[in-house]
């Protein structure tokens, strides 16, 4: 779910809307990552105990190595994965989230270290409140590192109209394209009703668009595909 969007002016002052991740999706990603960190720490302890006992290490050293490893996993997990996975972590990857700079670019490793080491105080108490009230849903670490977390746009092709009636603008194009993309997943009766409505609209204002189109027995969405010569974009 996309909670909000931030308009960032990029090269040549062209505005782009970056789909910001809010408290809910970031919290869920954090919960997944925390679960992985917990499992990794337990696994590390078991591995050290097994290997340490085999190598004849004393209990003190085994405990010491276990503790140190768990500490490094806890603090290093987010830094390591965000650098290796270019602004993502396994948890963020599940929710398709990515860390970017406030200009939309790739954050430096330094910025990723800053935003992740600043988890301790800010994220437990103040951080969640800060995120909730910040229009860009940034926690303290994001503000100091100059980063944002966004939803990665799904990489699926959408349907584009190949031809449109004279005088049509963005609203009409977007409406028809949105209907055609959802026609198959809408309730059948609703899908037919909306399609028929668009066809009546065309019959009234642009009857020439329907010339030579055989509508008999066809679903309105199929007819509209033919009328607008729809293509995958």
């Amino acid at each position, binding site marked *: 779910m996309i909670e909000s969007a931030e308009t*960032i002016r990029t090269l040549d002052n062209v505005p782009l809307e970056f789909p910001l991740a809010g408290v809910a999706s970031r919290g869920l990603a954090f919960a997944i990552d925390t679960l992985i960190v917990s499992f990794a720490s337990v696994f590390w302890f078991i591995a050290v105990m097994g290997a340490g006992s085999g190598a004849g290490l004393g209990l003190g050293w085994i405990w010491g190595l276990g503790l140190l490893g768990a500490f490094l996993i806890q603090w290093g997990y987010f830094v390591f994965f965000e650098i290796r996975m270019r602004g993502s972590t396994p948890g963020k990857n599940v929710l398709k989230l990515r860390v970017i700079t406030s200009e939309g670019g790739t954050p430096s490793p330094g910025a990723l270290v800053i935003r992740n080491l600043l988890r301790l105080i800010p994220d437990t108490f103040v951080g969640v409140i800060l995120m909730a009230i910040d229009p860009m849903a940034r926690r303290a670490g994001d503000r100091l590192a100059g980063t944002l977390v966004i939803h990665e746009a799904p990489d699926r092709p959408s349907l584009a109209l190949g031809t449109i009636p004279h005088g049509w603008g963005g609203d009409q194009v977007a409406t028809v394209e949105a209907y055609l993309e959802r026609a198959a997943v809408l309730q059948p009766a609703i899908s037919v009703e909306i399609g028929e409505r668009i066809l009546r609209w065309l019959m009234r204002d642009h009857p020439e668009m329907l010339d030579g189109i055989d509508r008999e027995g066809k679903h309105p969405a199929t007819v509209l595909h033919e009328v607008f010569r729809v293509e995958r974009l």
Partner: protein
Amino acid sequence: MEYGRWVEARRPLWDEVEARIGAALKRGNRMSFDDLEELALAYRRVLHDAAVARARFPGSAAARRLERLGIRGAYVLQGDLNPERFTFRRFYARTFPRACRSMLPHLRLVTALFLVAALFAALAALGSPALGLRLLGPARFEALREGKLWTESLVTAAPPGAAASGIATNNMSVALVAWAGGTLAGLGPIYVAVVNGALLGGLLGVTYHFGMAGALLGFVLSHGPLEIFLVLMSSGAGLYLAQGIVAATDRPRARLLREHAAISTVVVVGSLPWFLLLGLVEAFVSPQPALPPAFKAALGLVLLATYLAVAFNGGWGGADAR
């Protein structure tokens, strides 16, 4: 402008840019100069198309695809990319010392706070030894009255390996809290510096009253100097971070914040590994009564001098002095 024809005419460019961006992302944003130049030029044309689509056909499939391409292209082409590869040698030879010199005034301030707190606490403890009861708790205070220092339990309560790890991770956590506490307008680092100063001063005062100050110093000589200095460095870094948040300057706040956060992070990250070394010293060397105090003092000074040589190898004259 007819939507369908426009999409048909511009689509090859969008496909090309999409393919180039995908290839760049697969290679971790690494590309040749020629590839970079071609992508940058094509990307600007895509941005212009995105502006047209946003104005003429908002919400359409073309506008959404161009928005998506614009975002992915910005990620590949823009960013804080440092052309120099990270190496530990370069970090400790150049980046770390420069960052440490930047926050010298802040280090001086937290050191002064630490010393004042230590002095006040020592005087208070000398005047009222009962303060030791609050600092140490009843069991340790009673042991002190009987001439036993609580530090002796460090070698008996836990094996040295576990103690070393516990000490190191605890100290690293304190350092990170001192630094991250800078986000609370500097209250965190000031608190850490004052509390640590008061604890050290108070404990020295109490142990002096019971004639055990020498034993306490004997325990802390080998690890104490560097440990205290590292906590002060982290607190100084926290204050430097806080300066980026609260300082009134004519520079944009976001830029100031990023600069102060970056420099203070370098100081803290560069100091953290030293806590591992200190953990080993504190667990294996400090509690050994058989080792002469002179040896412990020499070890403590060598550790501190080594850290200072690394942290301030370009001198003490501030960030720009080379």
